[in-house]
């Protein structure tokens, strides 16, 4: 992108060497992939060194990369009878607890993504690392460096089962007391597992398996084209109708 982002990228590379990979810059926020073994050391430098000065961790969350880039609705062949169509694969929301898909061996399944702000440089930065073992993902905790990571890490632990080593108080935070499973993992059903209701006969709250059917109305499709840009074709269609409309279209 711009010169400044290039020079910032060079700064990261010259300071941290192989322990970081500079990723894409989107809307002025650069992303930085950090090896999990250098996670703490790099973060400490990002906070303390004058060149970086990221004083605040604004956001931290987990990401489950299972099923990334998979489409449920692919056209493989076309014949005189029509296109081959039909939903295959168990995409998000399409399965219940019993049919939940076996997680494939995905390398780099669980990622931890954090967003930092440097108030003095007025800059944001996205840092991310991947947990080495997807069976028992463990990532060092950032609570010591930025205290605000505390609840965010609890949330990522609760929803994704990522264990933050060195966290002072790693408890579940959003789910129910005694909840099992990690609901935001891609192999956890959208409809959930158990439902709670008050049983007037037993005079207490009972847990039962959910009864609702999994239902998804729109299949997940992937289309890699660039037609979403306001292109000349659109402008040409608009232009004769009224001269005003060109204003809205001149975005690109």
């Amino acid at each position: 992108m711009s010169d400044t982002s290039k020079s910032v990228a060079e700064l990261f590379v010259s300071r941290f060497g192989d322990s970081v990979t500079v990723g894409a810059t989107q809307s002025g926020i650069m992303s930085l992939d950090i090896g999990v073994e250098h996670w703490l050391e790099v973060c400490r430098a990002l906070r303390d060194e004058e060149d970086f000065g990221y004083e605040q961790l604004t956001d931290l969350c987990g990401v489950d990369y299972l099923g990334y880039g998979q489409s449920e609705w692919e056209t493989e062949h076309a014949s005189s009878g029509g296109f081959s169509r039909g939903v295959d694969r168990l995409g998000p929301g399409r399965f219940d607890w019993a049919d939940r898909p076996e997680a494939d061996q995905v390398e780099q399944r669980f990622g931890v993504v954090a967003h930092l702000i440097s108030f003095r440089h007025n800059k944001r930065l996205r840092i991310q690392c991947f947990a080495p073992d997807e069976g028992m993902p463990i990532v060092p905790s950032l609570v010591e460096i930025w205290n605000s990571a505390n609840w965010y890490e609890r949330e990522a632990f609760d929803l994704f089962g990522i264990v933050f080593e060195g966290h002072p108080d790693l408890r579940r935070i959003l789910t129910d007391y005694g909840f099992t499973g990690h609901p935001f993992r891609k192999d956890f059903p959208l409809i959930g597992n158990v439902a709670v209701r008050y049983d007037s006969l037993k005079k207490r709250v009972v847990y039962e398996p959910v009864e609702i059917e999994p239902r998804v109305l729109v299949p997940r499709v992937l289309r890699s084209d660039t037609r979403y840009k306001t292109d000349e074709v659109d402008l040409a269609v608009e232009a004769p109708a009224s001269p005003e409309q060109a204003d809205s279209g001149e975005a690109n």
Partner: protein
Amino acid sequence: MSEIRNYTMNFGPQHPAAHGVLRLILELDGETIVRADPHIGLLHRATEKLAESKPYNQTVGYLDRLDYMSMMCNEHAYVRAIEQLLGIELPPRAQYIRTMFDELTRFSNHLLWIASCGLDLGAMSMFMYAFREREMVMDMYEAVSGARMHAGYYRPGGVYRDLPEEMPLYKETPWTRGKDLKRRNEWREGSLLDFVEAFAKDVPSKIDVYETLLTDNRIWKQRTVNIGVVSPERALQMGFSGVMLRGSGIEWDLRKKQPYAMYDQVDFDIPVGVNGDCYDRYLVRVEEMRQSARIILQCVDWLRKNPGHVMLKNFKIAPPNREEMKDDMEALIHHFKLFTEGYCVPVGETYAAVEAPKGEFGCYLVSDGANKPFRIHFRAPGFAHLSGMDEMTQGHMLADAVAIISTLDLVFGEVDR
């Protein structure tokens, strides 16, 4: 001699001062708080997971229900994230409408805050006054979107429709008639913009009324001055944003520092506190309401002079209108595609933040090129603020916990998501 132990008390989840469904486990030494452990998640609806199973546009409605006191600001963060990945730019009129409604939202959020904070600390009449004004903002929401609260008005590519040319009027009822009816309809004779202008011009006088009631009120000051003091360093460490940060003396406002929509075109000031206590945060919020009114008037002025489109004229993202659909086959196809499948967002990840009334509301979006988000995470300001609750309450009296919860300006829709 018997052993003296700390007393553990359960506060909430159903308590009028808990602002929703906060359960707080308080460890008390006499009446002094030793430790506060907030238990949240009672309103957790897995919005982020639901969003993964729907096309992008269908999630806009869920965003209103996150922070259900500042609906349009949440939508703004979400649509901005999508727009960034799509690489589209909006018509300026849409940007001005968004700026205006963001500020109206900020105003109504702070009204609700001042109302409920007053109620918590014993200033009951505040509630009545603030809700009187808030009702007007609700009417504006309704006029523009059809819904009083959960508007769903911002869409990727602009806003759903242009501002209406006329405001609905109150009808005569046995309780409202004659002079009363005339007074209620006084501002509503013209268009929505006339109504907004009359309202925004009147706002400073209404804020003066609130300030007369509270600012120098002895009881109000006793309950808020030096309560819940946060130093600037700690505010940064604990991830505070918005008023919680500005109250502690850090001049940081995304509208100024990283401007979005049309905030770089309007003139306004950022109020900053000094001591970082509850009273300073109150003063900052009151001043923000005045500044909002200023911004709203500037937007009204611009919107009057510049008619135009409010939605991108790109049928790949924004639907064509009904008329076009009736006589253009392309438009019909686009409409069908948009509402059955939606649009695919290019591969990438982005983070879009807006200065919501409560602080920085951010949306982290990962797209793998599908018509549904791969992962979406909402950065709710209240979540970070509540995590600082333990530190803020330590050493305070039990009654002060109420004041502190109140100035955090929590809404559990966004804390629990």
